[in-house]
C-alpha cells in the first residue's frame, strides 16, 4: 500500500516524462516514517473528537453506580429512564423549546432584513450605496462586548430584557453585518440578463426580486442560513447577560446550568442524557449541512 505519490502524480499530465524517479522523497525511509507518524496523529485527533461523544451516549444509558464501576463498559441494561428524568427534571424540554423558538424567529428576521438590504446594495447604484455598505460591514470588526452594557439598558428601557423577543431582535442586529456582507457579494454574481428580460415582460421590481432573483440565490441563502442558525443556536454571552427566568432560557444556558449542577448532582446518568438531548439538534444540522458550512468558510476567507 502506501500510496506514496498521492494526488500530485495522479494529476500529472501524461506527456511529461517523469525523469528522476529516484528523487521521490516519499520512497526514502525517514519520509515514509514521517508520513506514517503524521497519519497516526490524524487518527489520534479524530479519536479525541469521536470517542468522548460515543462515551457520552453510552454513559447516558447507565445507572449512576454503573457509571463509576464500569466507566468503559457498554450499559448492561439501557436506562431509558435517564432520558425521562433529564426531560422532566432538568428542563431539557423547556430549553429545547426556547432555542427552537428563538432560532426560528431570529433566523427568519436576520435572513429577511439581510437579504433585502444586501439585494439593493448589490443590484442598484444610488448615492450612498457604498457608505451604507461599509456602515454594515463595520459591524463585523466591532466586538460585540462593546455594545453589551448599553444594549442591556436599552433592552431594559424598552421592556425587552428577559424576553425571547429581546433575544430575537438583538441576534438580528448582531448577525446582520455578516449576512449583508455574504449576500451582497452573492447577489452581485447573478446575471443581469434575466432581470432585464423579466422587466421587459412587464414584471415589477418586486416581482423580479421575489420570483427571479431569490430563487436563483437559493444556494447562497442556504449557506448563510446555516451559519446564522448555528450562531443563534449557540449564542451564549448575550443570553447569559439578559435572561434570568429559567422558563425562557435557551440551550447554551441550559448546558451551563448542567455544568454548574454537575458539582452537586447525584443523578449523573440524567446529566449525560440531558447533554445528549441538547446536542442532538446540532448533530443533525451538522450531518445534513456540513458541506454548506465548509463552503461558507471558504467563500468568506477568499472574499475577506
Amino acid at each position, binding site marked *: 500500500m502506501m500510496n506514496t505519490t498521492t494526488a500530485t502524480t495522479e494529476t500529472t499530465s501524461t506527456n511529461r516524462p517523469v525523469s528522476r524517479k529516484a528523487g521521490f522523497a516519499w520512497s526514502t525511509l525517514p519520509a515514509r516514517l514521517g508520513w506514517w507518524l503524521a497519519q497516526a496523529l490524524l487518527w489520534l485527533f*479524530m479519536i479525541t*473528537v469521536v470517542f468522548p461523544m460515543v462515551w457520552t451516549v453510552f454513559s447516558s444509558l447507565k445507572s449512576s453506580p454503573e457509571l463509576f464501576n464500569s466507566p468503559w463498559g457498554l450499559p448492561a441494561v439501557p436506562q431509558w429512564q435517564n432520558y425521562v428524568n433529564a426531560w422532566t427534571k432538568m428542563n431539557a424540554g423547556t430549553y429545547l423549546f426556547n432555542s427552537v423558538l428563538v432560532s426560528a424567529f431570529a433566523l427568519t428576521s436576520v435572513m429577511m432584513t439581510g437579504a*433585502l438590504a444586501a439585494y439593493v446594495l448589490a443590484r442598484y447604484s444610488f448615492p450612498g450605496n457604498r457608505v451604507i455598505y461599509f456602515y454594515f460591514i463595520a459591524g463585523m470588526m466591532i466586538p460585540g462586548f462593546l455594545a453589551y452594557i448599553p*444594549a442591556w439598558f436599552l433592552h431594559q428601557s424598552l421592556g425587552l430584557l428577559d424576553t425571547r423577543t429581546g433575544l430575537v431582535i438583538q441576534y438580528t442586529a448582531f448577525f446582520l453585518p455578516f449576512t449583508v456582507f455574504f449576500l451582497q457579494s452573492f447577489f452581485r454574481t447573478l446575471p443581469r440578463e434575466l432581470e432585464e428580460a423579466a422587466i421587459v415582460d412587464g414584471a415589477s421590481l418586486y416581482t423580479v426580486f421575489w420570483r427571479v432573483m431569490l430563487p436563483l440565490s437559493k444556494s447562497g441563502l442556504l449557506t448563510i442560513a446555516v451559519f446564522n442558525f*448555528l450562531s443563534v443556536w449557540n449564542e451564549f454571552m448575550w443570553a447569559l447577560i439578559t435572561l434570568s427566568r429559567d422558563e425562557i432560557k435557551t440551550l447554551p444556558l441550559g448546558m451551563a446550568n448542567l*455544568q454548574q449542577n454537575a458539582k452537586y448532582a447525584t443523578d449523573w446518568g440524567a446529566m449525560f442524557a440531558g447533554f445528549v438531548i441538547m446536542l442532538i439538534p*446540532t448533530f443533525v444540522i451538522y450531518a445534513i449541512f456540513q458541506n454548506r458550512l465548509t463552503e461558507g468558510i471558504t467563500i468568506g476567507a477568499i472574499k475577506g
Partner: protein
Amino acid sequence: MLRREQWKLIIPFLAPGLLIYTVFSVYPSLRGIYISFFRWSGLTSNMTFIGMDNFARLWRELSDPADFYNVRLYLSHNAFLVIFSLATVFLGLVAAALIAEKPRGYKAFRVTFFFPNVLALPAIAVLWSMTLNPSFGLVNNALRSVGLEQFALPWLSLQYEMPFFKLGLYTVGFIGIWGGIGWFMILFLAAIQNVPAEYTEAATVDGASKLRIFWVITLPLIWETLRTVLVFVTIGMLSGFALPYVLFERMPQKHADLILSYYYFVAFRERNWGYAAAIVVGIFVVTFIASALAYRFLDRDSVQY
C-alpha cells in the same frame, strides 16, 4: 438614472435592516465609548463626567494589582492562551497540508475535525468536564488502565501547580486547541487547493521532497490566508471569556480568569458601568492596535499567481 419606482424599492428594502442594526448594534457600541468617560452606577440616571479617570484607574490596577481582582494576572492568562491559539493555527495548517495529500480516510478527518466548531461553548465545557472527571472520566480511567496512574491528574483543578500557571488553565488551552483546529484546517485546505497544481507537479518532477515543496511553494502562495488568520487570532486574544467561565465555577476564580471576565464582574456584579465600559474600550483599543501591527508586521511581498 434612478426612477422614482426604484427608490420605492430601495428605501423599504434597506430600512428594516438599517433600523435594527443602528438601534441595537451601532448605537450601543458608540454609547459604550461615551459612558466610559463617566461615573455611573446604573441605578439612577445620574452620570458624572470624570474624563479619563476610569482609564487611569485601569492603568493603576495594571501596575499595582489589587488582591481580589488581579488585572495583571488576568492579562497574563490571556497572554498564555495566545500561545495555544498560535498552536491551534499551526496544527490546523499541518492538518490541512496532510489532508490535502488525501490520505486514507481524509473525508472522515475533515468532517470530524470540524465538528467541535459547531458546538456551543457550554457544550464543549460540559463534554470535557465529564471526560476529565477524576472519578468516572474517560481520560483518567484510560490512564489508569494502561498503568499510567501517576498521570491521572485533576485536569480541571485551579489549585494543582504547574510551571507558571495552574493545571486548569493548561486544560483550557488544550480544549481551545481541540475546538479550533477544524476551522483553520478548512480555511487552509481551501487555500492549499487553490495553489495551481502545475507548480507542485513541476517541483515533484524535479525531485523536491513534499516537505520542501510545502515550504518553498505552497506556504508563500497561501501566505495571505495565513496572515489574515493570524490577524484574527490577535483580535481574539483579549476577547476570550466564556470557556473558563463555564468550565469553572461562575465566580471570580483568579487562577483562570481572563481580562474580559474582569469586565463581566465589574459590570454585572459590581454594577460599576462606567468603569466596565472603560475596560471594554481599553480592550478594544489595544486589540485594534495589536491587530494593525500584526497586519503590518506579517506583510510580506505575497506571491501573485
